[in-house]
């Protein structure tokens, strides 16, 4: 199969890239959005809280973008997982409906989003019982499946989603004992504390970390400890807190497996692909956008960047087409002159 533009990922970034490329001259029928999950929309689908763009919920924003993309005639394929991307822009894709596919693209946008960092980074002592999970996983259990991962929870980390999940657990009838953050200030904007913790009487403790997990089969308690300025636990402040779940949110990294395998240069600081000003990666014609490029502070910024990437990709494709035409003209001019001789 051949496609002018293939976008990997249908989160807000992928959708906006597609819409913007189409608005800027790429034929919608030449655009294909590939999505691994059953539904389009990416992480937005699990965000039932509002605060997206003009105060929409995540799901509302997703459905608006999906409607817009589909309305323009952009092809979207769900349940389609990209296994790899080669330097010459051949994608290997698997899908239960279409099987094992090879797609040759002229341009590719990596809009694969990000992943939550694992608990290992925190190196918490103790065993590995059930009831310890990431904020994203907790959100999916509660919001998408209707199940509680715990009823008495400690949250560690202070990203937006750490605060949002604390509030959600409380709204769903659970208890949140506290949210703690090893650093001196929250990672997310302070407004989240006001919106998510204060009204629900959930304490927020900076310079505090979970230092131990109790329980072998299911978590039974955690040890919380205050940290000194160097980040070392102050032993005498150790405190054992009973709980049945620990939700962690220690930040995100761009989802770059495809990029690494394709041989792109990954930046040490952002952990995303190195890009030129137009978001083109070190592989010509492959662009990175949204959280797959760099972890953004807000959805607004992702949408702004993605709209720009759509324009840049349209320009790239136009340039390619022009070059091809020129070459053809040259060739035919050449041929013509040969003919004359």
């Amino acid at each position: 199969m051949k496609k002018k533009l293939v976008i990997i990922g249908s989160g807000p970034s992928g959708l906006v890239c597609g819409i913007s490329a189409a608005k800027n001259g790429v034929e919608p029928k030449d655009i294909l959005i590939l999505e691994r999950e059953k539904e389009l929309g990416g992480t937005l689908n699990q965000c039932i809280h509002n605060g997206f763009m003009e105060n929409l919920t995540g799901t509302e924003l997703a459905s608006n973008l999906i409607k817009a993309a589909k309305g323009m005639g952009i092809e979207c394929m769900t349940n389609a997982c990209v296994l790899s991307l080669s330097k010459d822009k051949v994608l290997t894709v698997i899908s239960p409906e279409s099987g094992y596919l090879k797609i040759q693209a002229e341009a590719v946008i990596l809009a694969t989003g990000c992943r939550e960092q694992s608990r290992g980074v925190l190196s918490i002592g103790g065993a590995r019982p059930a009831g310890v999970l990431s904020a994203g996983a907790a959100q999916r259990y509660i919001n998408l499946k209707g199940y509680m991962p715990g009823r008495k929870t400690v949250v560690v980390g202070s990203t937006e989603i750490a605060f949002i999940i604390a509030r959600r657990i409380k709204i769903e009838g659970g208890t949140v004992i506290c949210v703690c953050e090893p650093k001196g200030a929250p990672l997310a904007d302070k407004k989240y504390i006001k919106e998510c913790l204060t009204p629900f009487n959930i304490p927020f403790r900076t310079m505090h970390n979970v230092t131990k997990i109790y329980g072998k089969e299911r978590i039974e308690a955690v040890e919380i400890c205050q940290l000194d300025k160097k980040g070392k636990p102050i032993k005498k402040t150790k405190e054992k807190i009973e709980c049945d779940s620990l939700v962690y949110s220690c930040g995100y990294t761009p989802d770059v497996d495809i990029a690494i395998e394709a041989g792109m240069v990954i930046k040490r600081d952002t952990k995303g692909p190195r890009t030129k000003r137009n978001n083109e990666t070190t592989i010509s014609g492959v662009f990175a956008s949204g959280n797959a490029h760099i972890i953004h502070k807000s959805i607004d910024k992702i949408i702004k960047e993605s709209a720009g990437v759509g324009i840049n990709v349209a320009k790239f494709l136009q340039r390619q087409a022009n070059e091809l035409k020129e070459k053809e003209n040259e060739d035919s001019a050449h041929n013509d002159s040969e003919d004359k001789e």
Partner: protein
Amino acid sequence: MSTKAYDVVIIGAGITGTMTAFQLAKYSIKTAVVEAGIDVASGSTRANSAIVHAGYDAKEGTLKALLNVKGCEMMSQITTQLGVHYKKCGSLVIGFNNRDLEELERLKTRGETNGVKGLRIIKRAELAKMEPNVSKDAKFALYAPSAGIVCPYDLAYAVAENSASNGTDYYFEYKVDKIERDGEYYVVCSEDKAIKAKYVINAAGCYADEIAKLINDDLPFEIIPRRGEYMLLDKCEGKTAKHTIFVTPNEKGKGILVSPTVDGNTIVGPNANIVDSKADTGVTEEGLDEIANGARRIVPQINLKAVITTFAGVRPTPTSGDFYIQESEKCKGFIHAAGIESPGLASAPAVSEYVIDILKKAGAKLNKKRKYIATRTKDGNCKLFYDMTEAERRKAIKEDPRYAIMVCRCETVTEGDVVNAIHRPISAHTVDMVKRRTRAGMGRCQGSHCREKVAEIIARELNIDISEVLKFSSNSKLLMGKTK
């Protein structure tokens, strides 16, 4: 109710027990394996360094030395037969000064006496070429080309699944608490359950002494639980070391190592601390610091920010210092395979043959089976999607479209892999069982994106509610009921 009778009951489904079951499954006798845990490899076999040691560590003339060298030689054949990842990556013991060099020379001589082939002392220049990241202070190394790495629980699953496919019965959550005599049989009981056999093999790892006590036998040594902690690094740091690198050993043992794993990660550890409980597989802050420092001695620039998980295992260290594999003097037909500490994994193939020799001497009649399945299961070696070639992937998806549904993107695990693991002879019916068989949840994000998908598939395939799905044991439910 009549008690089910077997020729042989093996207590413990660690690598010693399962490997013995695998070797026994070639003969036409009836074997059962009973295991306290919910799965194969619930003890030391689950969490260790995963090194197939070459055999220069064990003292000359010990059972350990004999079985280590032989086991290491057998590893290639067994892993090829059953499709288990195994790599002969070689090991290096590095030395920093002349005292270390003397010790390395001693190890080399010992290894040669034990029958290890190809041992060589190398100098700085060659070492630097082999291991660009190794400490500049490392001046020499003992190179053992026959050492390797293997996934310990996968090896245990493979041999267990093969034996189950060949008619061996497995009983899980069967903690043996009483053993009685009934004529020529031993009745092996757990709570209200009982099975009986003419021969019993005690392969209970850390608990082998307690099993001996159940028949009023006393092992001539104590088993001391010594915990070893580990850190596992992301695959992006998988090239930190190309060989298994140790420092020159001291009185405390082989010390902390840095090694690649068969799955492409880097493993760092273990320390060795005596613990109160044989079940204490928790990690500690101090312990992790200790192994981090140990690792920096070997690779000063090691990127410990890339740690994706930490874990610990408990060694069944015998005070005698050697493996103890013998028929009980008091109880005929009762065979102990105890004190199987490191290199118990590397030695397992040879340990199991040794056990079978004792069984024969004790009178067990072993005739080769006519119908024998040589692969993991009757359907072959259950290759994972990740390991398949492009042609195999196309074929797998055509035959079962679930191989085209991605479950774990970090480790490229598909729904087809998960469903296969759930329906194999030893069913993976918990999230961790699926994880260890398929690698779903073992990557960069440690299951934060796939655990719930695995749980949903388990619930669907076993026809239970998702809130009933377990992480690993009966008290480890993933969820705590519905939302409001």
